[in-house]
């Protein structure tokens, strides 16, 4: 220790690097003290300086020597110790001495960079091309169970760094296995707004609910819960801004709002000025003793869709394209509870999470939009209103280091859907098979093994009843690898 303190003091005296922090008087004082010490302990200090130079140059390989030198210094400099240490500490505190011996280069400013590799093998008893969530308007996102057989999943490149003292920025590109790059996230986030406020802007996953903000490699199951797929096309992402505020309380109280372009389902890109999608969220969380922690929240998404179209078949079986125009509002309630003995999750831990979704949509529905306007029969555009809901609950238990097992239950209800054309008798319910009342559900069980915090191998079985009257038995084997400097995952 004394060695380090001495190093700092010496650096300050002889190198005179800290042009801005130390007054001449301070330097003179340090020099005086050093001279005094030198007179007293000349030989020892010379030896020490020599060893110091060596140790600093080799940065660490001379630890043993340094320790020895430190021991000598302890005896030699007992008297001068306190004053020395205080001055050295002040210098370090002011950032004038800490970098001694550490090489600096422009390269050191490179952002944190990481790469996520994912791949899987799937055995699906039903053709994934026929996948649909019965009773719900298709959400257009990545909702189907994916390819059968062996396949590579999206690879993610993550770059993140502080831009300057005020802003941190993150960029995440998803590389599709068949080619093509998708900018998944590209956002900045303020660091120094203060008073609990944080502003985020760019393209990011909305902070609504619990799982929405997590990237797929951090999920506890291969796929997103059915409710996320039905209500947000897997995950709600948008281009926009987010303002959050954390209250100065013992409990975590966080409030936030987002305004976005309305790029993805349930919105669609509407070529308009201003915000196309707005969200509000509030969450509360804390600990119960040393072993339990919890968080609960309520979120609200409000947007509009303009000719949000989907493909269906009419009662004769002919392919038609229908479209919804109107207002869409979704509420999400979430609850997460985690347990770890004494708060130490390394050996054993348990995590329970559940989210409830409720959406109401009101507007107009256009039937068979492909029909040329001249031949359009009156009454084929009618009022549309739906009240739909769904939830999932999952528990994941790490029963021994590296091994976790989990189950998930998914339930959706197509709820009340009223279609003007059907009410007026112009069309029948059979003309809208995608909207036929149904209660989709799924049950999943998974087992995963993580040999380190950078790799995970997962086996999952899902009994999926998304399609009306059809059971899809799905078996997945998945790997997730994380290379490089990957930022911490949120709770």
């Amino acid at each position, binding site marked *: 220790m004394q060695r380090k303190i001495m190093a700092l003091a010496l650096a300050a005296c002889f190198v005179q690097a800290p042009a801005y922090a130390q007054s001449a008087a301070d330097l003179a004082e340090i020099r005086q003290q050093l001279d005094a010490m030198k007179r007293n302990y000349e030989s020892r200090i010379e030896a020490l300086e020599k060893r110091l130079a060596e140790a600093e140059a080799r940065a*660490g390989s001379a630890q043993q020597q340094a320790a020895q030198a430190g021991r000598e210094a302890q005896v030699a400099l007992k008297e001068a110790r306190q004053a020395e240490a205080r001055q050295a500490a002040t210098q*370090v*505190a002011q950032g004038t001495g800490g970098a001694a011996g550490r090489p600096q280069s422009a390269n050191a400013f490179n952002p944190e960079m990481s790469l996520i590799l994912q791949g899987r093998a799937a055995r699906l008893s039903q053709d994934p091309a026929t996948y649909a969530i019965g009773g719900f308007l298709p959400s257009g996102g990545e909702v189907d169970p994916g390819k059968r057989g062996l396949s590579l999943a999206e690879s993610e490149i993550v770059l993140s760094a502080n831009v300057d003292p005020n802003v941190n920025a993150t960029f995440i590109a998803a590389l599709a296995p068949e080619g093509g790059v998708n900018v998944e996230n590209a956002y900045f986030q303020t*660091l120094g707004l203060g008073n609990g406020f944080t502003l985020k802007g760019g393209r990011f996953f909305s902070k609504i609910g619990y799982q929405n903000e997590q990237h797929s490699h951090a999920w506890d199951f291969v796929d997103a819960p059915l409710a996320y797929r039905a209500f947000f096309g897997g995950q709600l992402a948008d281009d926009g801004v987010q303002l959050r505020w*954390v*209250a100065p309380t*013992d409990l975590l*109280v966080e409030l936030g709002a987002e305004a976005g372009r309305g790029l993805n389902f349930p919105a669609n890109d509407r070529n308009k000025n201003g915000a196309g999608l707005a969200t509000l969220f509030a969450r509360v969380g*804390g600990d119960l003793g040393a072993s339990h922690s919890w968080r609960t929240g309520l979120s609200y998404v409000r947007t509009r869709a303009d000719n949000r179209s989907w493909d269906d078949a009419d009662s004769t079986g002919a392919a038609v394209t229908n479209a919804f125009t109107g207002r869409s509002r979704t509420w999400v309630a979430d609850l997460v509870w985690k347990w770890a003995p004494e708060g130490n999750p390394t050996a054993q831990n348990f995590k329970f999470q559940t989210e409830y979704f409720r959406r109401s949509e009101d507007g107009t529905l256009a039937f068979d939009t492909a029909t040329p306007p001249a031949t359009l029969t009156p009454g084929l555009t009618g009022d549309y209103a739906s009240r739909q809901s769904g939830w999932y609950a999952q528990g994941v238990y790490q029963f021994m280091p590296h091994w976790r097992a989990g189950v998930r239950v998914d339930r959706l209800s197509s709820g009340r859907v009223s279609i003007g054309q059907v009410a007026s008798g112009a069309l029948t319910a059979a003309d809208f098979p995608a909207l036929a009342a149904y209660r989709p559900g799924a049950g999943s069980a998974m087992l995963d093994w993580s040999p380190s915090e950078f790799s995970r191998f997962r086996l999952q079985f899902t009994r999926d009843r998304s399609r009306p009257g059809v059971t899809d038995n799905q078996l997945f084997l998945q790997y997730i690898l994380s290379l490089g400097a990957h930022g911490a995952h949120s709770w």
Partner: protein
Amino acid sequence: MLNVKRLLCGLAAAVSLAATAPAAAALNVLACEPEWGALAKELGADRVNIYNATSAMQDVHHIQARPSLIAAARRADLVVCAGAELEAGWLPLLTRESGNAKIQPGGLAYFEAAKFVTLIDVPARLDRSDGDVHAQGNPHLQTDPRNIAVVAVALAGRLAELDPAGAAIYRERAEAFATRWKAAIVRWEARAAPLRGVRVVEHHRAFSYLFRWLGIEVVGYLEPKPGVEPSTGHMAQLLETQRARPAKAVVRTSYNDPRASVWFAERAKRPAVMLPFSVGGSEAARDLTSWFDDIVERLLKAAL
């Protein structure tokens, strides 16, 4: 959108009114580990309000950014941590999510003990195939009381800078602590003198600084690589080497699962000993002094 804004502002106002924080202490200190919380308390007494983010029963490498920690980071005037990437898995999230401008890395209120101490075990190469390596060196520097003495001086200075009104108190208390601590070090060194040259097997590279200080030699680690759980295969190999250079004890921290060291100790016919990793790691480790008292006594009991 106007409604949204009004609702948000209203909620914000309501919560801030509800949160009438008691202004008794001058500084809210968020200590990443209890030893730094205890040190800040020694130096600041009533002027500081301590919140320990972790306990000695938790593996500081693997802490989750729990809601309560984000709330604590939001209120903190000073963050005191070990540094050297020990908290890399969770502290960046706390500082970023808290919306607290004061405690951002690089600022005055972001204090890393490792900055003031020369670290050992600096890896010659950085490769994850070597396990959980810390690029800057072993971050468990609190296990050498001489490091704590150095950090105490720096921390007292930092407290005084952040709370100038209490500068005299911090200085006074730092000097008193230094005197007490110096005497304690002399006492521990004398008491632990018979431990010099004693060989031990350790679970994780957790007490490297302690062993270097006391002259204890580590002849093997239960973890095949830093941060990788002990495997029976590796431990069986280690048992073989015990014939040539037998260890006196098998040491683990208060947060390690005892099964590995007990398994090994039974086969090596040596005592397995738990050493508190920080204040609160054992019944006896109530504060900094009693923590090292307990460490020394436990080592003496097990290894002699």
